[in-house]
């Protein structure tokens, strides 16, 4: 007990150092290549509940695990803050344990070093204090997000940063509700149709799917559908989003899917004062003919719909 107190009081961090009898390149690839990573992260005792990894600085990851015999679950999520090839990568690390946030605001640094007989792997998992956490987030925000093409908030500020290969729409709104009370507004058809499309189906499980149908005043309709990639009630929901329709004359459906795929990330985080921040990040828009229009169309569309979500979820009138 006294020894553990000393550990905690020395520094709220865990460091695990192990030497693996494999060459550095293989160990590095096992972490950084998502196709390899999914093969080992869960291991024999646990099962995966959905693993996504956008391996680039600013890219998001979500690694979900479950213990089949008792149903205990653990999901880590965050961003790649730093990647130094064959040397180290650093993750911002938030986690959800059995459905509840578990000590937010950590940082995990994973370092690799060639040693005789293999590779030394060093994992430093540290909790960042409040001040550092703010700095860390604002830096992360500045480096990863400010580079993106358009940053909107509900006060109507629009910032443009051009020249990046990808761009995203970012919106954040604070609702006077708990995360558990907001979750159904994002996942239940009967609630979704009150602020977003007129018809909805959604299976809020990793690997589930959704289909939304809008009816325009002129009687025409349009549909958006795709897979749910991450669902961690009531905090995380990621879904594919195809902003265009497949045109068989332009090529195969698979080619269209690969080119058109974007991702919508919903993040709920409670403020501790009875309200909850709902963040939307819609990313993966390319540049090119027609894409600017699609991007701008989605930016203004989301602004309108997220505003409507706030209105409707707060018990006010539907503004659609």
């Amino acid at each position, binding site marked *: 007990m006294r020894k553990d107190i000393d550990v905690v009081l020395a520094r709220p961090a865990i460091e695990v150092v192990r030497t693996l009898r494999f060459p550095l390149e293989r160990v590095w690839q096992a972490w950084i290549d998502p196709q390899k990573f999914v093969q080992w992260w869960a291991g*024999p005792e646990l099962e995966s509940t959905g693993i996504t990894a956008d391996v680039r600085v600013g890219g998001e990851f979500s690694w979900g695990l479950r213990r089949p015999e008792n149903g205990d679950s653990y999901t880590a999520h965050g961003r790649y803050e730093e990647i130094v090839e064959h040397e180290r990568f650093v993750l911002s690390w938030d986690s959800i344990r059995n459905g509840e946030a578990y*000590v937010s605001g950590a940082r995990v640094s994973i370092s690799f070093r060639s040693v005789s007989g293999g590779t030394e792997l060093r994992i430093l998992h540290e909790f960042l204090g409040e001040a550092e956490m703010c700095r860390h987030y604002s830096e992360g925000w500045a480096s990863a997000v400010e580079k993106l093409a358009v940053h909107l908030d509900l006060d109507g500020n629009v910032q443009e940063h051009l020249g990046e290969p990808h761009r995203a729409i970012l919106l954040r709104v604070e609702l006077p509700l708990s995360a558990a009370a907001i979750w159904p507004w994002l996942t239940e058809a009967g609630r979704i149709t009150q602020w977003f499309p007129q018809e909805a189906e959604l299976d809020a499980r990793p690997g589930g799917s959704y289909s939304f149908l809008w009816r325009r005043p002129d009687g025409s309709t349009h549909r958006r559908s795709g897979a749910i990639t991450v669902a961690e009630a009531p905090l995380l929901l990621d879904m594919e989003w195809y902003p265009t329709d497949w045109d068989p004359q332009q090529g195969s459906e698979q080619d269209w899917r690969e080119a058109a795929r974007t991702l919508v990330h919903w993040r709920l985080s409670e403020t501790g004062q009875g309200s909850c921040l709902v963040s939307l990040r819609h990313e993966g828009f390319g540049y090119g003919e027609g894409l600017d229009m699609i991007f701008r169309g989605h930016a203004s569309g989301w602004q309108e719909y997220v505003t409507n979500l706030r209105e409707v979820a707060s018990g006010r009138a539907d503004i659609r």
Partner: protein
Amino acid sequence: MVKYTEAELSRTFSALSDPTRRGILRRLADGSTTVSELAGPYSMSLPAVSKHLKVLEEAGLVSRDKQGREYHCRLLAGPLREAMEWIAFYRGFWHARIDSLEDFLASDEQNDNDGGGAG
């Protein structure tokens, strides 16, 4: 056992993130003492130490009782136990992940040797 909420746990860790406050807690782990004694090793003014104590008190890590003319401070173990659980959880977690990484690398090597991993 008391179940600490996420907010409380985060507050515990925030309180622990400062080296002076960890020093105060280490001192209190040896036994309760007065505020002026605590201020001793830090060459800090009493108000500065009081400020740190207030953070620790709000995080539920320290209690302050007036005894005569002096305040006595005492370490409260509850939130610390939760912080230790955090450490123990992740220590086990990371070792288990690395075990599984080792298994994977070994079987991947096997596949490569069999020629199954080509391409």
